[in-house]
């Protein structure tokens, strides 16, 4: 946590704490006055609250709009190359998850993670989904379970959904997202990468497990979004 002293909340918070602590201690132990001691305690409490509260938090709607707006370029790219196949989320390179969308069938998923990164190749497109930046900025640890990590990113960090459940069965993973609040109106992006929450989920799984994650599809029913993924077990080369 870095504190900028030019921030009015930081300056006020520090001032309140610096004043309140000795004032409260002096009032209680020297003056024996509980009221003044309580005032000193209140100053310390309010000072700490001021320190922890940012003066200009980025509105959540702005963050969500930026995440959804990132889909515009991807939609244009997918439309230009007329790509309709489901994408594969690949483990991060330089901290960023990327997604390979094949234009031909029968590609070897196992070799995708090690192939050179080329945005346009003969067998597919490589894009950086919105979820890749979210995963990078959220800073999830390596030892976290899939459900815990996805719940943290979608519910706590982005506040993009009210709840998340993840069920693993072998290499298949089913995710149920409760009432997502971000969505994408871009048809090709939804078809190839999935909705915004699907993109975040695929990016989280690829980042955590360091294996290619195939997006299989999603269905929306009564405020619940069910996502299906397959984790590709890549053998050692």
């Amino acid at each position, binding site marked *: *946590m870095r*504190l900028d002293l030019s921030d009015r*909340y930081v300056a006020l918070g520090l001032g309140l704490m610096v004043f309140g602590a000795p004032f409260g201690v002096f009032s*209680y132990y020297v003056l024996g006055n*509980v*009221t003044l*001691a*309580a*005032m000193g*305690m*209140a100053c310390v*409490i*309010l000072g*700490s*609250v*001021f*320190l*922890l*509260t*940012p003066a200009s*938090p980025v509105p959540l709607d702005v963050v969500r709009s930026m995440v959804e707006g990132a889909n515009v370029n991807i939609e244009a790219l997918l439309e230009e190359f007329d790509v309709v196949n489901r994408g594969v989320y690949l483990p991060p390179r330089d901290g960023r998850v990327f997604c390979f969308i094949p234009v031909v069938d029968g590609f070897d998923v196992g070799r995708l993670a090690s192939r050179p990164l080329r945005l346009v190749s003969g067998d597919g497109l490589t894009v950086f989904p919105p979820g890749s930046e979210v995963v990078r900025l959220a800073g999830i640890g390596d030892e976290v379970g899939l459900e815990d990590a996805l719940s943290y990113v979608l519910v706590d960090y982005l506040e993009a959904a009210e709840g998340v459940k993840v069920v693993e069965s072998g290499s298949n993973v089913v995710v149920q997202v409760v009432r997502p609040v971000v969505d994408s109106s871009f048809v090709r992006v939804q078809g190839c990468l999935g909705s915004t929450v699907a993109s975040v989920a695929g990016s989280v799984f690829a980042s955590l497990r360091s294996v290619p994650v195939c997006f299989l599809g999603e269905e929306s029913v009564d405020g619940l979004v069910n996502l299906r993924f397959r984790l590709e077990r890549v053998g050692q080369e």
Partner: protein
Amino acid sequence: MYLSVQALATLGTVVALSALGESRLEVFFSLFTVIHFASSALFRPRRRWFDITGGVFFMGFCYIVLMKVIDIIG
């Protein structure tokens, strides 16, 4: 809004309890705890870091309760 409400509620608590002649510091602390968690639940403010204030309040409240329980048992 969150800061204003919490500041006004805290100040009002100090004034009210002093007017009632309250001399126990743990009563003030307990009410400050309630104010902090209630305002945090209502406004869900964004924070730079973990809610350290809430953590200190929780530990302090547990300590007060523990002392009271020991008094009752003793």
